[in-house]
């Protein structure tokens, strides 16, 4: 037996900057060591040097190209908890609308990357194309496709434009019908089953022990969702369910994401229907009082934790960000033991790790 050391990456091994250090024996991966940090920007240190308001666009870039609205929401939550600030009702709804639209966009993106890893490239284009419809909606709402800086301390920056509600509902209807095509094309596809079923099985006890979060944890059958456990903004007013998987394999991890898109559509319909009239922003002083808070939000990839220590000035004394991909990262070496080399990309992409999110 001869063990070979293999290095894959860091230039986009599957998606984005990431390196795998593998011990392989022939075709079998014995051990995988992830090497991260290629997109480290030192956001936690940067945050200490800037004011709370200046930090808004910086924090958003923790996970910018997939889920900036969900990322931002946690940062605002933690500031507003320390300030004891109550945001206007309409702003809460608008924040939820932006975050849920972003969740759909993120899950569609994940699905398209997944299809590439399995070699089904038609499904690369379909979700990316449909994601564009959502990004277009977000552009109407916020003015940007990817990085919005839409939600701000005390509310949101812009109100809904005219005709947004009708257009959004129309597109959500389309997307709901479209999901059926995804099932036919990908999830009920025999080739896809062969590549993903029983690949990378994460048992629920292991998932909890390792601290895995988000859709990956739910795919293992653990019903945990911050939106239900600790409802923030107005999530306690919506009627939605938490989809879970049965086997915890790569297939389940993708299927849970598709089901979550359905639930997001559900939430968005209710939010668009119930949204009250009123102000969208409260003026707030740019100073956060002395104190400490930890808040959690459910972003697209899972739970975001923000730990803020304020010292009564305009800058945070310490801002610790605990992003979902960093916490899911530990599942990768756990799952990649004694598996065929060809399964590594499948497992990696099924965990939906975003290196930017890991590195901060």
């Amino acid at each position: 037996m001869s063990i070979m050391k293999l290095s894959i990456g860091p230039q986009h091994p599957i998606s984005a900057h990431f390196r795998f250090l593998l011990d392989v024996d022939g075709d079998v991966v014995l051990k995988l060591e992830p090497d991260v940090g290629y997109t480290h920007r030192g956001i936690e240190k940067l945050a200490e040097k800037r004011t709370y308001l200046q930090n808004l666009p910086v924090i958003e870039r923790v996970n910018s190209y997939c889920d900036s609205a969900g990322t931002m929401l946690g940062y605002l939550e933690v500031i507003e908890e320390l300030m004891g600030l109550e945001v206007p009702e309409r702003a809460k709804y608008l924040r939820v609308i932006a975050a849920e639209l972003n969740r759909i966009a993120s899950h569609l993106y994940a699905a398209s990357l997944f299809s590439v890893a399995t070699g089904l490239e038609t499904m690369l284009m379909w979700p990316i194309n449909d994601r564009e419809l959502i990004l277009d909606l977000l552009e109407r709402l916020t003015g940007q496709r990817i990085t919005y800086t839409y939600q701000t301390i005390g509310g949101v920056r812009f109100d809904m434009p005219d005709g947004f509600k009708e257009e959004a509902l129309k597109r959500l209807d389309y997307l709901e019908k479209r999901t059926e095509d995804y099932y036919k094309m990908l999830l009920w596809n025999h080739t896809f089953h062969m590549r993903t079923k029983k690949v990378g099985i994460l048992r629920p006890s292991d998932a909890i022990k390792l601290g895995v979060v988000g859709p990956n944890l739910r795919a293992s059958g653990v019903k945990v969702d911050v939106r239900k456990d600790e409802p923030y903004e107005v999530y306690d007013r919506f009627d939605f369910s938490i989809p879970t998987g049965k086997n915890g394999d790569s297939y389940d991890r993708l299927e849970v994401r598709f089901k979550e898109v359905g639930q997001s559509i559900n939430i968005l319909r209710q939010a668009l229907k119930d949204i009250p009239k009123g102000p969208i922003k409260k003026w707030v002083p740019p100073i956060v009082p002395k104190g400490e808070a930890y808040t959690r939000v459910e972003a697209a990839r899972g739970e975001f934790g923000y730990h803020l220590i304020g010292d009564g000035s305009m800058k945070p004394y310490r801002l610790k960000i605990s992003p979902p991909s960093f916490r899911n990262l530990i599942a990768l070496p756990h799952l990649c033991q004694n598996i065929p080399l060809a399964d590594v990309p499948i497992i990696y992409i099924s965990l939906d790790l975003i290196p930017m999110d890991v590195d901060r």
Partner: protein
Amino acid sequence: MIDKSAEELIVDSVKARFPEEVIEAKVQRKNRVSISVRNNRIYDVGLFLRDELEFDHIASVSGVDYIDMNEFEVIYYVWSINKKVLVGLRTKIPRDNPVLKSLVDVWEGVLYHEREVWEMFGIKFEGHPNLSLLLLPEDWDGPPPLRKDFVLPETHQERLEEKIKKLSSG
């Protein structure tokens, strides 16, 4: 008798089990409990939280540099899936000798979190299997960057202003 909330019961049982080691245990708000312990006993309190009180899901490990008081604080945030409570298990260690017993045996998920705290604050975790650079560049040899006395390299703005000053004076 008034029924106590889940948070208060947790505080009471920790205080009863570790009267000496726990410096302060309190309910911060709904779903949040803060437990401050002496740094030499954090491992035992961690085991107690995991085995007896069902704190199973690690959320985050934060390091904080209190440079004025010459100490670091390390906070383990752990969520209990059944009880729906987040506990902040915190301890303070002296800045001159930052060593703490690793909790990898208690919660396996802290593996990368502790590595990050080690590289960012220079806090050594005894018993950690692999304390090596995680996020920082592999040729990094500077001081731990999240310490408060870390001097940031000069920014472009400062460099630009200096250049302008030189040009205008000379």
